[in-house]
């Protein structure tokens, strides 16, 4: 760096010719590169450092996912001085923690819009050669994207549960008693929400990796949800009671079956797999198979890149 002399005697300003300055600070490797991709993907999905229009959608969905919990806690708070009404409401009107996991289609809608937005622009704008010319591998990229989407879906699914739990503590007779009586929820909820978040994120990203167009990726996910659930219903009705193992074709309901196993230890009565012998094992196996399939597809799609 050179300091040029002032143009006039007595002038207070100075002009610096900074030229090129080499970087001598810390420099990360693969882990830091992957973490940077994760951080940038989270930021993009939430619309941070983007225009207000990009922020509307994710934060609206978070609000939609949280509003039912806030409303229920609000009603319970209003009824707190009327013990009989409160008891009725808590028994019948208040959603359980199990029911709240995945109850909102807002999560699925978020994945349908965010997963393609995370992957497709990198392909369509041919940014991948720039990314992979850094200390980053295709696997790092895939898991950073998966981690980012799963993290946000987890947050959107977990935050309302926190509202629900804290609200119920506040309206209960003794907050500490409620906490100790429901201690198992403290691991069940995060586990079930994580199961849902990872599955939805992997599924959404795997479909999005097959196309360069965002709209196609989103429609593919929602279409898959619609078609597989319709097919499962038809099979279910044809099979009658008890259910049939073929109901596993309802792919986006599989994490809800695993959720049942976490909360109840068995498949819930509202599941397509109710009454199926070995339904729990079937659900977990199908869940793992689909998840691994999605991860394999993602890794295959990003195993190499054209410059």
């Amino acid at each position: 760096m050179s300091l040029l002399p002032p143009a006039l005697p007595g002038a207070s300003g100075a002009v610096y010719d900074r030229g090129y300055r080499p970087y001598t600070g810390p420099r990360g490797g693969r882990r830091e590169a992957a973490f940077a991709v994760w951080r940038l993907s989270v930021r993009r999905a939430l619309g941070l450092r983007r225009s207000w229009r990009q922020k509307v959608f994710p934060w609206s969905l978070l609000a939609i996912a949280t509003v039912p919990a806030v409303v229920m806690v609000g009603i319970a708070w209003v009824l707190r001085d009327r013990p009989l009404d409160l008891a009725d409401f808590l028994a019948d009107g208040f959603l359980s923690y199990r029911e709240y996991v995945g109850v909102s289609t807002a999560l699925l809608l978020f994945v349908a819009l965010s997963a393609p937005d995370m992957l497709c622009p990198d392909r369509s704008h041919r940014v991948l050669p720039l990314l992979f010319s850094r200390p980053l591998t295709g696997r790092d990229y895939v898991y950073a994207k998966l981690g980012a989407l799963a993290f946000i879906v987890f947050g959107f699914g977990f935050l309302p549960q926190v509202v629900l739990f804290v609200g119920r503590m506040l309206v209960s007779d003794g907050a500490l008693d409620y906490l100790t009586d429901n201690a198992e929820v403290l691991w069940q909820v995060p586990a079930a929400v994580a199961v849902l978040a990872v599955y939805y994120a992997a599924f959404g990203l795997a479909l999005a990796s097959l196309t360069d167009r965002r709209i196609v990726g989103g429609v593919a996910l929602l279409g898959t949800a619609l078609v597989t659930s319709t097919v499962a219903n038809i099979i279910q009705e044809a099979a009658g009671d008890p259910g049939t193992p073929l109901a596993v074709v309802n792919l986006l309901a599989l994490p809800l079956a695993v959720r049942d196993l976490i909360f109840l230890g068995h498949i819930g009565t509202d599941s397509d797999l109710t009454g199926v012998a070995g339904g729990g094992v079937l659900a977990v196996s199908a869940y793992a198979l689909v998840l691994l399939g999605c991860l394999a597809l993602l890794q295959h799609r990003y195993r190499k890149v054209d410059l």
Partner: protein
Amino acid sequence: MTYPGGTTALNALTVEVPRGSVGLVGANGAGKTTLFRLMLGLMPPSAGWLEVAGRSVAHDPVGVRGRLGYMPEHDCLPPDQTAADVVATFGEIAGLPPRAARQRASDMLDLVGLDEARFRPIGGFSTGMRQRTKLAQALVADPELVLLDEPTAGLDPVGREEMLELVGRLAGFGISAIVATHLLDDVQRVCEYVVMIDRGHLVLAGPIDQLTQRTGVMRVEVGGAPGAVASLVAALAERGVDAIALDAQSLDVDTGRCGEDTFDVVRDAVADLGLRLYSLSTRHRSLDDLFLQRAAEAAP
């Protein structure tokens, strides 16, 4: 390097290049981009090995990429983001801490002349501004070596001049550069070393100033009576110097036998014949001449 489909993109290419600015020259399809792919470790060679910045690409592709910057030929920038965000993003992915990446992004955009446009979305940039942004992202992590793929592609004459001026300054920053292009003029202007490839084969490699030095031929132009050139050729032959008449006024004289004394021999012969000597100069080869000559020799 043979692709799975059987296409051989590079064949028996053995070359070692020094630090500094290196031109990688070849026609479209010569194998320049394949060589970049191999250097970045994005694909393994079907045979042979590469070492970049002292590291084996096969053993440590990620480590090699940590020392490289890359500027692709094609458009590769997200149009909905600002130049500052894009360059900082690639700085972070190259391993810089976020704050340092933002600072370096600002410095690099300043360096390439985009300081005032850095907060504008790239979608509204001209081709020249996009090329500068691509160069800035390649430099943001202070690489040892940058791979520049057709850096002047699509630029108007002014933009081309500015880009070449920027590329020419890289060596002064301590950054080596490999400039892949089919424009030999660009290479001759900003590079010290050249590697020429054609259809996957090495045509020639070496320092440009040595390759373009004297050809061993002196061009002489004379005036006088008709047949002056023929008589001069004969006179030179008597003095032991080979010469070839080109037209009624000029001839090429071989300087190989007499070396620097050829000037004196030609001068004396012209004076003895009473001719007018208009010009007398040794010829320098251009990279175009070299490429065409060697490619023709190498052609099957």
